[in-house]
């Protein structure tokens, strides 16, 4: 699975979860907090993305991420490890 597809999944869940965001305004180099997401918004976005991608990443690995790109990179790694 390509990174771009994973970014698309994450973006979709950001739009679904935060009522007032449109997809074009999401800059992957920013954090979800920058988009106005609170801590439980982020828990929802990440858990919905993982569910769709059929992977599970421990919370401890998610906690140090600084922006959406880093989340996508991590999910990309885990998705491809699982596929291998």
């Amino acid at each position, binding site marked *: 699975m390509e990174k771009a597809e994973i970014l698309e999944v994450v973006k979709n869940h950001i739009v679904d979860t935060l*009522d007032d965001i449109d997809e074009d305004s999401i800059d992957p180099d920013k954090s*979800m907090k920058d988009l106005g997401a*609170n*801590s*439980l*918004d*982020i*828990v*929802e976005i*990440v858990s919905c993305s993982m569910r769709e991608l059929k992977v599970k990443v*421990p*919370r*401890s690995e*998610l*906690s140090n*991420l600084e922006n959406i790109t880093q*989340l996508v990179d991590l999910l990309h790694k885990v998705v491809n490890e699982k596929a291998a």
Partner: protein
Amino acid sequence: MSGEPVKIVGPDDGVTELWLDDGDKNALNAPMVEALERALARVGEDRDTRVVLVRGSDEIFCSGGDKQMLLDIASGKVHATDIMLTRAMIEVPVPTIAAMQGHAVGGGLVLGLACDVALVAEESRYGCSFMNMGFTPGMGTTRLLASAVGEHIAAEMMYGGQYFRGSHFAGRTQLNYVLPKAKLLRKARQIAARFAEKPRGSLELLKRSLSLPRRRAFEEARTMETMMHEISFAQPETRALIAENYESQDA
């Protein structure tokens, strides 16, 4: 941690505010549960209190049982005594108003729903995380949630463990108000002031009568929930899920 995790403010014209504020997540750990029980008993006995308004911080109303408490329950060290907190809230002899401007999760949500009036914020999140950690809901959730949000939404929340935005509840539940966070406390105080104009004796009588279905629902819930906990907390995967759930939550 800044001393007492529950502050009692008032009574001011009959309104006493209970402020959950441990400087952190307002989790239901032993000090918080004890402080809440003490505070509820104290305001109940105070003849100058005619309404109790319960609030948390701007960010978090109450995040429910903390990791240590849940692991202690799972290992049998502690019994789910915090369940009595729900009953203590229902049995406050005067009307109670939950001003939930911050997130409320699990036991923290049901604590708010045990109040007579409940307000939630559009942008905060509310959910039942029990099953995410592998064990069945507690603290009266299995009965009290449905009376607030309806059976089907309650079922979705208890099976799913998702955190709904407050705005999700607008127009489809029994919650009194779904408001922007910035307006919520003011509204809750207006409601409280209105209630507080009435004589304490009559407020007490009406409270006793109106809270009867909730008291009954709680007792029913408790019977089943205790039984389900004995089984679900003993499942081997539950401990691991509890531990995992409380690893850092800031992605």
